[in-house]
């Protein structure tokens, strides 16, 4: 049946082309993000979105090779969502870098942020314990009290 075969082939060609376009888009955004990361700010969310986009393209290539065209269309959209989100974050941070005060807001808690918060909390706990420790007489005082009690007996 030449008709459907031609349609299938046209769809395949279009999907190959879209895969390439998306891959190039992800590559461009990744470059922009890497440049921003070395110059002013590294966004973990943009990074993970790009990683998700790349993983989705890998899935799309597998589905395309197997001829699962409906799945490919959907995976293309998913890759696009991730890539576009990363692009928007990188663009927003570029605006802040160029026009703002360079105070970047991370949409998710970054690892370094979490670590700093844990450090701060730990320092607070430690201070509270050491404040309590000040109420305990020093060891030599304890010993003196003990020996005095012993003598008294």
């Amino acid at each position: 049946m030449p008709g459907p075969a031609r349609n299938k082939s046209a769809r395949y060609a279009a999907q190959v082309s879209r895969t390439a376009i998306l891959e190039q888009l992800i590559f461009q955004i990744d470059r922009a993000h890497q440049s921003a990361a070395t110059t002013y700010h590294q966004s973990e969310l943009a990074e993970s979105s790009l990683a998700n986009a790349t993983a989705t393209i890998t899935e799309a290539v597998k589905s395309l090779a197997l001829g699962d065209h409906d799945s490919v269309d959907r995976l293309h959209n998913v890759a696009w969502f991730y890539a576009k989100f990363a692009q928007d974050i990188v663009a927003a941070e570029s605006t802040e870098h160029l026009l703002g005060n360079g105070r970047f807001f991370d949409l998710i808690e970054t690892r370094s942020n979490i670590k700093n918060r844990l450090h701060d909390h730990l320092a607070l706990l430690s201070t509270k314990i050491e404040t309590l420790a000040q109420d305990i007489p020093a060891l030599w005082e304890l010993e003196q009290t003990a020996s005095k009690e012993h003598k008294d007996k």
Partner: protein
Amino acid sequence: MEFFERIEHMGKKNPGEKASQLLSKLADVIADAPDVADLESGNYTELYVMRLEKAKRAYVKAKNALAHNDPQSSIDHSQRGLLHYELAAIHACTEATAFVANQTFAKTVMSGGLNLEDMIEKLQEAICRIKLLIEYQNSSISKELRQRLSTVVQNLQDAIEAYARNDENDPTLVSDTAIGGLIWSQYIHAALGGDALYAPKQEPRTLRGLYQLALESGVAAYNLTSRRIKDARVKIHSLEKVLQSAIDAHFEGDVSALENYFRVGAIEATALIKAAAKAISGAEAAAEIGGEEEQIKATPSFKEIIAEMTELFQNHHSDPERAFASLSYLQKDAASLKRAIRAEDWQTAQNFLVCCRAEISTLSGVVHYFSRTD
């Protein structure tokens, strides 16, 4: 063999033969592939190299499969290898200019003219607009609002994952998740002092009320926090509860409950805005501001710090059990230490002090290795 079987058999290639043909074709294209040095500079050469390498790896796998008498696997690998090569060829001849892309490729239209792709993109746009607003304002965001925003970002991730799964058993999961995220985005943007993220009148009819309520609640929350009204947190929490209940009623299709929440929410938000305006102009404002500042400056209690650390480990540590155990022991030992000091039982106090210091040292180690292990 029957006539039709013979015809069918003629149309089909022997798998071994097909595998050999594809493998040979893949070998040819790889051999003829241009060298990187021969490509025009400025094209996507990195992507070309990456895809060509994948094609070569697929060739090796296809060859091995054929050698192990597995023609079907060999066919699969060869087809994938040829696809990698096709992609490599496109990258090789495409100039890497600044990329402008503004399209999704297929749309799933929902009832009422909404489509899933537009909803997901709209949520992405909303999140980025909130980020821009926070950076533009150059101010800090409250812990509660940050948590709300984290949930919205998670909604986006969930919506994309649900879209990718394309679960036919739950066709509204993507749209419901995206709508939830959008309504809360509208609230967060207003609570930060921004304009309406989306004008309710321009939204689909079924969602106008929710967008309006989110806007009113957000404006009220902004008034309460910016004017540092007493018990702001409690009042904001109450507003947020009404908004969440309205969202739930919308998803459940409970129209009368929804109307009720709209009414209650609007009344409460308006009353709070008025109260905030009155409080700031009245004599009690100064006292209230002082009270709120004191509340902000108060150091968290031992218990609160432990609770927050537990939450951080729970959400961000891959193996939090050790940290949980240390935090639990620390809390118990610190309580025993306090009791011993009150009772002037110095030897016991000294023992518990040693235990507390040891637990803090253990926790310090867990935090130190946190970024390396997770």
